[in-house]
């Protein structure tokens, strides 16, 4: 099953053993719009993969299919089977406004039927893990956009999932908060040893975060290119200003432009 992906940036190195396997998946909405057409994608255990593409290319649909929140019209998706093995972070923080930060984070554990003491302890740990110790009793409206997103990430991680799916989670944040969350997310990823599939429309964000980038093109959405970002971790703010980073961003932009040019021709 070790298929390599030949692209302009070279052969992508994937960790052995895939946790997600998307095989020839297509998805058409009831309206007749084809969101995905024949997508094949593997995600290795422990990998940080970004799915990069323009708005409306079906990235969110792909993520929902991987999560099992939607079913493909054809093809096959393999994912971790356990109920609490997948965490999902939406574009908005998606918190329950009537519940405190702690209660929001504890929600998946509550739905899993854990005891009150156990779920509050673990939710407290998860909140500390995203740098929000001391905000347990705050309500979402009392938190900034970046803090709300941290709560959302803590909630996704509280069940100790093997797979974390993120749908443009930082798109609505200001740049300062976004850069800080990028670094903190990488720290969490390495600490929790979780596999991340990160959907974004930002070239800069995908290059900074990922081990590997899959570029999607639209109408119907499909994987146009896959390539590795070989820079070792930990990556910090120094990487963001390095010549290396600039070169990788330029290559990635070219890949994205090429994918979209094909799309224009096809249309």
């Amino acid at each position, binding site marked *: 099953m070790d298929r390599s992906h030949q692209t302009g940036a070279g052969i992508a190195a994937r960790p052995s053993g895939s946790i997600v396997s998307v095989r020839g998946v297509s998805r058409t909405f009831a309206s007749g719009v084809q969101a995905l057409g024949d997508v094949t994608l593997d995600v290795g255990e422990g990998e940080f993969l970004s799915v990069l593409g323009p708005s409306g290319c079906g990235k969110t649909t792909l993520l*929902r299919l991987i*999560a*099992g*929140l939607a079913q493909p019209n054809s093809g096959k998706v393999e994912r971790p089977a356990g*109920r*609490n093995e*997948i965490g*999902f972070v*939406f574009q*908005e923080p*998606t918190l*329950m*406004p*009537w*519940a405190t930060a702690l209660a929001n984070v504890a*929600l*998946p554990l*509550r*739905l*899993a039927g854990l005891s009150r003491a156990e779920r509050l302890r673990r939710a407290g740990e998860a909140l500390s893990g995203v740098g929000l110790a001391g905000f347990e009793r705050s*309500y*979402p*409206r009392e938190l900034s956009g970046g803090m709300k997103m941290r709560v959302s990430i803590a909630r996704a991680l509280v*069940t100790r999932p093997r797979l974390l799916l993120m749908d443009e989670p930082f798109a609505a944040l200001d740049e300062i908060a976004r850069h800080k969350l990028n670094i903190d997310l990488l720290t969490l990823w390495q600490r929790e040893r979780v596999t991340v599939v990160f959907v974004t429309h930002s070239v800069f964000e995908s290059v900074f975060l990922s081990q590997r980038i899959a570029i999607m093109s639209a109408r119907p959405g499909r994987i146009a290119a896959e390539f590795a970002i070989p820079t070792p971790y930990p990556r910090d703010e120094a990487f963001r200003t390095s010549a290396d980073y600039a070169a990788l961003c330029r290559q990635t932009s070219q890949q994205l432009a090429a994918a979209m040019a094909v799309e224009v021709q096809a249309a």
Partner: protein
Amino acid sequence: MSAKAIAPLVLGALILVLWEQAVRLLAIPPYILPGPLVIARTLVDDWALLAPSLWVTLGITLEALAAAVVIGGLLAILFSLSRWVELSLFPYAIILQVTPIVAIAPLIIIWANNVDLSLLICAWLVAFFPILSNTILGLRSVDRNLLSLFELYGAGRWRTLLHLRLPAALPYFLGGLRISGGLALIGAVVAEFVAGTGGNASGLAWRILEAGYQLKVPRMFAALVLISATGIAIFLALTLLSHLLLRRWHESALAAQE
């Protein structure tokens, strides 16, 4: 006290003073228009007669409101759980709502064969619809992504209802409750007018009718004042309840603080 509270109070006091002066200067007899002081004195003098009626009207109103909360709320939950139940029943709920209560009250009084019960049914009929329709709206107005999240964690229909739909519907329900509180009182008063008599004990509407027959206009006004005061008290109590339940998180309660 803020200017927001003082302004209407000052206006109210001014109107009462003008009213009293007008009645005196124009020498209007109290059986046409009593002044505020005469009404206040009647309220005190007739308290022994009016107070029991007040409790009767208040009792029917609160019972009808409680029934509206229970039945309206349960129907809303049922409708939200089953599309077919809603499609079948909702049109009839609308028919009940749009038919004037005055028109069906005589039938209800005949069928119920018990004045107190028929008054309760009438007041309930008027009161339950805002709770039903608002709660249905609230149960539906749930963040799509939160619903996806509950689905992801395998929460079934009941736990989604309990932990997500019901809390999300609370502000809508409370909005409906405030409307229903006033409507329950109106329903109770209207039904008693139609019945033309109280049951074992008479309510304020009957006191107004009775005083009208006897041309005791100040007593009519006194009963009217009590009905208005009851309506205001119900509204304030429900507003307070709403504020206490929502103040930590809901926009409507936050706007009031600022």
